[in-house]
């Protein structure tokens, strides 16, 4: 199964990339997805996460083909 990860704004700049792809064979939470792609990096404080463009809690479980995104607090408007 495959998950696409997207990063935005200051988090994208700090990681130096805007996307990752993670392959997996067992149940993963959003938080697990982060560590698969960023084993050496703790989840940032205040990070927001979405699955398929809806906000989710970090312990929600992902499905095959989901698009997971991580980003800092939003500052629009």
């Amino acid at each position, binding site marked *: 199964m495959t998950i696409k990860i997207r990063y*935005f*704004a200051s988090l994208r700049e700090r990681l130096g990339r805007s996307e990752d792809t993670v392959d997996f064979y067992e149940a993963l939470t959003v938080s697990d997805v982060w560590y698969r792609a960023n084993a050496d990096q703790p989840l940032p404080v205040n990070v927001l996460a979405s699955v398929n*463009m*809806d906000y989710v809690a970090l312990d929600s479980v992902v499905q095959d083909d989901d698009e997971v*995104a991580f980003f*800092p607090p*939003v*500052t*629009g*408007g």
Partner: protein
Amino acid sequence: MAVKVCTGAFEPWQEIQDYQNAQISGGFGATTVFIGTMRDFNDGDDVKSMMLEHYPGMTEKQLQNIVYAARQQWSIIDALVVHRVGTIMPNDAIVLIAVWSAHRGAAFDANRYIIEALKTTAPFWKKEQLTTKQARWVSKNTDGYTAG
């Protein structure tokens, strides 16, 4: 109801006029508008320009959710949300929210709800380019109810 993400400058008063003429046939007694405009200073520094990043797709989805939630809470006839992305210069409009309703209470309350929800949940991020050549990400939005 419409939500729009613009990559170029927009004229807020013209946008409202055009939308109202095209979409709204009457029945509204109250219209409220909020426009957020880029200023040339922030946190004590001179800002030359701003880059507004967003999450295409999620932005529109969240804005639609916000407008839908406003419709659930207040009796409104129509609403328009326009938000700029990309490079923005001082005095450019960043965001426009217009609400049409039968009565003013709903028009004011729904408008303010929409801008507060947008500022806390719509996936936009501002990066400021200072006149000193430094660039910095805006780290958080102020609370619109208590901020002056």
